[in-house]
């Protein structure tokens, strides 16, 4: 049994039986009898009571994170195992406690860093401006902060989710 997280939902999933394509899976209290087949790498064809689902998986940062696309909808799915639960519990403190890394969700280039280490900045202050694909995005602090560390330089190429500036 594993827990699987989709949005706010935490579903308990258990494989009841499996014989080739034929699988029986329990999701929370519901039991599904499926014909499930990986037809391309990461792409599954599922027949559930003859209804056809074409499901594409894209792995995220690790093997437990997925973006899952059906023809109609898209979901962010996380597998919650012991390790993940430990990390979740540990990281589940007050968001404003301790250090916080400002990062950009997308890769790009640092256009400017209008702050310097030691600056006391107020809610809404822009700490870094990142450009990608001809568009500039400003990253601001949501509460009053102090700039602790600046990890990148202006003009530097950055990865998505890379820590750029540490505030406390």
């Amino acid at each position, binding site marked *: 049994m594993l827990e699987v997280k989709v949005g706010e939902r935490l579903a308990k999933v258990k494989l009841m039986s499996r014989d080739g394509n034929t699988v029986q899976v329990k999701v929370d209290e519901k039991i599904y009898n499926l014909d499930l087949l990986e037809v391309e790498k990461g792409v599954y064809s599922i027949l559930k009571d003859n209804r056809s689902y074409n499901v594409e*998986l894209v792995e995220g940062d690790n093997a437990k994170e997925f973006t899952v696309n059906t023809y109609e909808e898209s979901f962010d799915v996380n597998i919650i195992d012991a390790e993940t639960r430990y990390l979740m519990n540990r990281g589940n403190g007050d968001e404003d406690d301790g250090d916080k890394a400002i990062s950009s969700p997308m890769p790009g280039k640092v256009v400017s860093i209008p702050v310097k280490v030691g600056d006391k900045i107020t809610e809404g202050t822009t700490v870094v401006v990142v450009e990608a*694909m*001809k568009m500039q995005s400003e990253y601001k602090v949501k509460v009053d902060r102090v700039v602790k560390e600046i990890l990148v330089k202006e003009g530097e190429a950055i990865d998505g989710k890379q820590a750029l500036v540490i505030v406390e």
Partner: protein
Amino acid sequence: MIKKVLVANRGEIAIRVMRSCREMDIRSVAVFSDADRSSMHVRYADEAYHIGPSPSAESYLVIDKIIEVAKKSGADAIHPGYGFLSENAEFSDRCKAEGIVFIGPDSHAINTMGDKITSRKKMIAADVPVVPGTTDPIIDEDEAIKTINEMGLPVMIKASAGGGGKGMRLVKKESEILSSIRAARSEALNSFGNDAVYIEKYIDSPHHIEFQILADNHGNAVHLFERECSVQRRHQKVVEETPSPIMTPEVREEMGKHAVAAAQAVNYSGAGTIEFITDNDLNYYFLEMNTRLQVEHPITERVVGVDLVKQQINIANNEVLKLKQDELQQKGHAIECRIYAEDAENNFMPSPGVIKHMSEPLGLGIRHDGYVYEGFEIPIFYDPMISKLIAWAETREEAIERMRRALYNYKITGIKTSMKFLERIMETPDFVNGQYNTHFVEDNMEFLMAKPDYEGDNEDMAIITAFINYTDKLDKMQPEPMKKNMAKNWKDFGRKRSILRL
């Protein structure tokens, strides 16, 4: 006769130009920056030359480098695509000076149409309707206030040298006039080094309708009808269609004539687009001319049945335009959706990254122009548009249904794209009814962002698939002796593979 064309561009438009070149038995030369070594246009071309670092200012925009490659490769012509150097008068001149054919208009046409006030004057002289407003740049504030009061509010203050929404201010109340003028001038100075502004009547509920024109070097010009481009977000077109759902045959004919007159007023050569701002009563006014191929040119190609790139090349070859206005007609309806690598749910933030998996929609009435492929990493340096989907059908209703069908089956994973957003546009009543203007996205944001209800168990299927995939991976990681109940054929399979099957 042009025998080798350097395509001074990248992405889908570079490939699109190369396709027509190949059909004409013309060799194509690609140029690429550091970030584009693995780009499809490099793989697609007959020849490819590296022209510098990834930022376009150091590669695709450097005239000297492009010219150098043209000479080295022996290209006798350069196609600029759209964007980059396509509307650069200096580049057009430079090509001419170097004895290379520039597939596009001369610098006179580019310069004249590139300046809002100059082009406005030209259009007035050519009897092409323009938005009521001033033709001279305004420096004096009192004069500006007087002009605005005469014209009546609302008005738009615009930078003469402007573009892209910069140096632009909408004035609705008298009390805002002075502050708006000052703000526009200061922004214009910062952005363009020139603080001249002009004043235009503001058109409420405007439609963006443009006409495609073709003009040769022998005085012949035709228009290829209109494109409706009012579905925009952040002043960027998202969906275009032709014919425009609000057009009438009478207005079309009149606008077409004005579009041709506009092009001829600057002795235009090649393919170009006259943009009109149009109100709900089909009053229309010249807005600007794009002196190049447009992103949305395929919908015209589909409905009129003309290959615009081939026409450009023929014109550049000094050929006489074979198309006759009275022989041209629109057949059926075409819609284009631009697919961007962006997160529509997160304020359309760009989403570069690596393409993991793609399924392209095909079949009747679908054209697909793209450039990404599985395993390709979309560079962060350029435009986020990754492909264009064009649907054609006999009627507008059917074209929308076809577009919905195509978007439904189109999948690109690994990055966020605007596909779901586009699918929602195809379902939005204002769009379906053909009753929309440039405020469409804004006005319908709630509907566009709402998630439709689907029957079935998509979510549970997503959960199960991820679960199975994860547990299968875990299982494969177990050391051999721990695996129980291994089927015989799986063992055989493993043995078979072990003979240097890497």
